[in-house]
């Protein structure tokens, strides 16, 4: 009797002690998690056994025997599933990078315009944002794809600019550059320009600290990185020959082409994400209290400097964390590419390869791992940036 009561007391004391209770809960949670994983692995093994399948990645080295229309590196249907996967990764990476860039530019612009005091601008942007973000992104992709594929003209009636750019339902054809040897000089000029800008920013800061002189840093950087290489390009005798696409038979040959699937997916994803980014940017700017700008004005700072020195540093701290989520969303939403036949990770290894080889388990593990890598890379870069701008505060 006594020992039972003592035991009860021990249990109740353990359970009512805050720290010990935490340890007990953690032990049970970990045990539960392991049991679940153990069960799932066992379940997968026994089911694969029952189907007579093994678990192996050998299929990656067999011929894929399907075509992919957009490939950055050479690919034919005789190449392996592994190479097809790499093409898929490149296509996903391309849409993610191009999408993030366009979404950021459009999103920041819209976010700032949304705060405009001009009634018309501010209403138009408001309507755009509300329309875009309240329609599912898949519909946007299908709609833009439909417009590109069905409404744009045939190659024979292509919309053209200067007879070198052609917009057709088969894609957007552009001249492709062919670099001559003198182009090296231009690349060197560009490298010098970039190096100069890095040096000049430090130099300008040092001179300002010492003498108070303020240089037009942005203009001079722009000149060094853009205008200087362009001048060198012309001085070197324009060492690029352009291969202009030419209509041959039913389609254009030569030059570069942006395929309609890429165009549709890129525009739809970027414009969709831009609407969310615009709201994040607007919120970030509003979050900097009006008192901050008033204090800066009262000290005699001009509006431009106030934005640069007071508003942006404080707004970025609010903007960056949710902006990271939007970048991740855009990257993951790119898997909707399969709806319009853009050959990304899901369409290659997670789609055709999976169907042809029947290796669902292996393919899905690869797809999951790849998206995980993409997402973790983006968020680690953004977290690094976030920490860097946060350090300024405390």
């Amino acid at each position, binding site marked *: 009797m006594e020992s039972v009561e003592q035991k009860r007391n021990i249990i109740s004391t353990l359970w009512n002690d805050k720290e010990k209770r935490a340890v007990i809960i953690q032990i049970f949670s970990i045990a539960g998690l392991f049991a679940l994983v153990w069960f799932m692995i066992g379940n997968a093994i026994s089911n694969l056994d029952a189907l007579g399948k093994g678990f192996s990645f050998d299929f990656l080295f067999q011929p894929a025997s399907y075509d992919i229309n957009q490939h950055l590196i050479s690919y034919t249907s005789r190449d392996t599933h592994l190479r097809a996967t790499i093409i898929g990764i490149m296509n996903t990476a391309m849409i993610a990078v191009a999408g993030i860039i366009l979404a950021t530019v459009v999103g920041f612009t819209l976010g700032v315009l949304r705060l405009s005091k001009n009634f018309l601008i501010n209403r138009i942007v408001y309507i755009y944002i509300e329309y875009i973000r309240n329609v599912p992104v898949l519909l946007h992709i299908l709609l833009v794809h439909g417009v590109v594929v069905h409404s744009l003209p045939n190659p024979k009636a292509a919309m053209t600019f200067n007879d070198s750019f052609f917009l057709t339902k088969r894609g957007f054809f552009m001249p492709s550059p062919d670099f001559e040897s003198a182009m090296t000089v231009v690349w060197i000029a560009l490298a010098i320009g970039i190096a100069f800008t890095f040096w000049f920013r430090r130099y300008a800061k040092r001179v300002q*600290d010492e003498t108070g002189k303020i240089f037009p840093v942005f203009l001079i950087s722009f000149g060094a990185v853009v205008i200087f290489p362009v001048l060198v390009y012309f001085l070197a005798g324009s060492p690029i020959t352009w291969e202009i696409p030419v209509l041959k038979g039913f389609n254009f040959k030569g030059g570069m082409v942006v395929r309609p699937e890429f165009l549709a997916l890129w525009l739809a994803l970027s414009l969709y994400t831009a609407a969310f980014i615009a709201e994040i940017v607007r919120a970030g700017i509003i979050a900097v209290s009006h*008192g901050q700008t008033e204090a800066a004005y009262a000290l005699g700072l001009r509006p431009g400097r106030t934005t640069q020195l007071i508003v942006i540093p404080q707004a970025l701290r609010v903007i960056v964390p949710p902006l990271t989520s939007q970048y991740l969303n855009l990257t993951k939403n790119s898997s909707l590419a399969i709806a319009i036949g853009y050959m990304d990770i899901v369409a290659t290894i997670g789609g055709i390869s999976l169907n042809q080889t029947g290796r669902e388990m292996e393919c899905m593990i690869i797809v999951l791992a790849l998206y995980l890598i993409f997402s973790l890379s983006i968020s680690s870069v953004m977290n690094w940036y976030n920490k860097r701008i946060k350090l300024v*505060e*405390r």
Partner: protein
Amino acid sequence: MSEAQTSKMAVSDETVIKIHKMHKWYGSFHVLKDINLDVKRGERIVVCGPSGSGKSTMIRCINRLEEHQQGDIIVDGVELTNDLKNIDAIRREVGMVFQHFNLFPHLTILENLSLAPIWVKREPRKQAEETAMRYLERVKIPEQALKYPGQLSGGQQQRVAIARSLCMNPRIMLFDEPTSALDPEMIKEVLDVMIELAEEGRTMICVTHEMGFAKTVANRVIFMDGGEIIEQNEPNEFFDNPQHERTQLFLSQILAH
């Protein structure tokens, strides 16, 4: 007392702020009605009145944080118009201290103080920081120079805000209810700094409910109600012998307890 002496001492005949028949509307709401005010160099003016009477709006018009729609404001010989050059020139001469301090939270105290001298006056950093340290010593918190505003108490933050304005060496200081957001024990430390400033003979316009401060340092007390200047007088006369019945009512309310 010496206060009585200082209040007569530094005032000159030169007019530094001239507000003439100034009106302001927010939409259809007439906030400021026919304001006429001449401020002499070295004068210390306290503006009081019930909330919503337009006190803050009036002094915010002086450095163009608010725009007036009618009448003239001339500060130090420069007329306030839409001319950005004039606005810049006036803001360089006029410092302002806010109710909620408005320090820049992402910059250290030292950076808060040296920002405007570096970017507006284009001073070398070292010189700007030396000036900043000098003013921090004057407001008695040089040891906080490398901290961030969020790490300071309210009274310390307000003293930093005063020092930040002083770093631009303005001829005129505007105070917009500088002690209203502070705990009672912190009010004194801020008022002490302001009294010291007043003794230097700097032109000051101060919106405040601190009647003790008004009695000690002001040459003139202005009472506003409903967007109008109702009454103005030198402090002893103003408090002992208010003329207008709205002034009497206001004074009886705030001096009652």
